[in-house]
């Protein structure tokens, strides 16, 4: 008689109290230990890439800022940089500084948000309330500069829509002092707490080679000792002119990620201060008449990692292709490396530790539960070639051999 091995599958989602967004995790468990993890997405898919082909170049920043509410400064920035690469626009220097200020303010509130949520997940609600209380002034500042607490819509092709008014500078600096002081208090409370050390250290370790293998970005990579940062490696906006350093921690556990985020908050505060001091005079936007045919790439360091936009133009007023790759898209698969072998109670925290943003990540997923088809690299390549050949035939393209290229 053959023995059948039964696996218990724990379903988490799509609506569950842990995270606000819809996502569906299937945890295969052996007692309390997780042996496999499967993520199902596409609950949140809205078809933004397709929608953006129907909008004009000037309208798209407002759409892409709604890819994700928390990265709503980085996505438009990456898109705008891609379009500026096509049109070869010289962006005024003041606009570059304003972009930096908005992006760093966003990073401050996003990292504080994460610290709060991480505290909430381990049942330390005091940290949750503190962190969210201290991020409120940042939102108020952003509202004063751009007109909205989130979804700033502040960048446009060629510059910025709203300027940082000079009379607001003293207020921003005063608020930053308060935020820095409170964050320092929060950091000390978190980093010196023996309970948090016991709870977070050694949990959900993502090793350096795994981090490289899964190509993770942002604080997830920097928490595993991979010190990549778009702001440093391929500087954009005014980051090259500012004095700051890339924070990285070698451990790869949840504690390291928390340390990276908290220390980055201080770097961001420092950067905003310096950018405000150096803010040059001049116009805040250059005039852009038309977008010539061509293609461009833009990337920016969102609070969660590198966000990448590719835009192709055929000379009309709308892009013919717009491709978005958000940071969580590469961070989410790293759960395979960091969650397997952990306890269920630690997995929730590990899932939260990469600060996943599913609204960024969503792709259409078609799940056919009855048939099981597993594609490997070779079969996917084969499928792709067959489709290209079919399309060629349909549009009557001339036969082309690989040797001709």
């Amino acid at each position, binding site marked *: 008689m053959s023995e059948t091995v039964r696996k218990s599958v724990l379903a988490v989602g*799509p*609506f*569950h*109290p842990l995270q*606000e*967004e*819809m996502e569906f995790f299937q945890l295969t468990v052996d007692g309390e230990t997780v042996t496999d993890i499967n993520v199902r997405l*596409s*609950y*949140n*898919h*809205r*078809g*933004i890439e*397709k*929608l953006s082909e*129907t909008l004009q170049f000037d309208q798209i920043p*407002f*759409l892409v800022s*709604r*890819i*994700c*509410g*928390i990265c*709503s400064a980085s996505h438009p920035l990456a898109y705008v940089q891609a379009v500026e690469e096509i049109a070869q626009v010289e962006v005024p220097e003041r606009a570059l500084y304003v972009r930096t200020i908005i992006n760093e303010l966003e990073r401050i509130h996003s990292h504080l*948000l994460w610290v*709060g949520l991480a505290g909430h997940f381990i049942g330390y609600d005091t940290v*949750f*309330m503190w962190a*969210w*209380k201290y991020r*409120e002034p940042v939102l108020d500042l952003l509202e004063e500069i751009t007109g*909205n*607490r*989130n*979804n700033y819509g502040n960048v446009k092709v060629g510059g910025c829509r709203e300027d940082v008014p000079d009379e607001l500078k003293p207020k921003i600096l005063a608020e930053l002092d308060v935020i820095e002081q409170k964050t320092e208090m929060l950091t000390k409370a978190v980093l010196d707490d023996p309970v948090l050390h016991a709870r977070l250290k050694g949990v959900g370790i993502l090793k350096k080679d795994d981090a490289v293998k899964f190509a993770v970005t942002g604080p997830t990579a920097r928490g595993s000792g991979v010190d990549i940062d778009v702001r440093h490696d391929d500087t954009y906006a005014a980051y090259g002119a500012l004095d700051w350093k890339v924070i990285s921690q070698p451990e790869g556990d949840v504690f390291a990620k928390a340390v990276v985020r908290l220390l980055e908050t201080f770097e961001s505060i420092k950067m905003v201060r310096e950018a405000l001091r150096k803010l040059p005079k001049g116009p805040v936007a250059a005039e852009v008449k038309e977008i010539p045919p061509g293609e461009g790439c833009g990337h920016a360091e969102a609070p969660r990692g590198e966000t990448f936009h590719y835009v192709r133009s055929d000379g009309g007023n709308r892009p013919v292709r717009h491709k978005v790759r958000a940071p969580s898209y590469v961070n989410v698969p790293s759960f395979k490396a960091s969650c397997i072998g952990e306890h269920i109670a630690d997995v929730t925290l590990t899932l939260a530790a990469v600060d996943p*943003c599913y*609204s960024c990540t969503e792709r*259409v997923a078609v799940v056919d539960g009855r048939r099981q088809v597993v594609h490997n690299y070779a079969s996917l390549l084969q499928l792709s070639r067959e489709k290209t050949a079919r399309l060629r035939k349909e549009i009557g393209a001339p036969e082309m051999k690989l040797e001709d290229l």
Partner: protein
Amino acid sequence: MNWKMWSLKKSVWVFHVNCGACNNCDIEIVNLLTPKFDVERFGIKLVGSPRHADALLVTGVGTKQAARRLQEVYRQTAKPCVVFCMGACACGTGIFEGAYHVAGPVDEVVKEVDPNAIIAYVPGCPPKPEAMISGVVKALAAI
């Protein structure tokens, strides 16, 4: 007013349903619970199950994947309940109008299950927390 409606207006417990939002409205909703706004003062509490809830805070456009799940969540909620459409997307699909994966505004999705559902709208992208509080107060005063 029967006793069920009378009791609905006291200490509203809410369940938060994201059906394809960009996270903004969601974060502003969580923001309501934190010290600056602190709606728990008024007995408004975020609960973990629709079966405990008096009101659903729905955010997002209602994508094709999410619409069926939203209907299921609505069925599970104890009646009478109020459905709050939070944000421009939930009120009328907003900027995502016409996208291929959008199943329609939230109110139509809910009305497929219950044509007499009580639906309140709080527009804005995202609505400010003050607007959300004001919307909840107005809706509860009206029923």
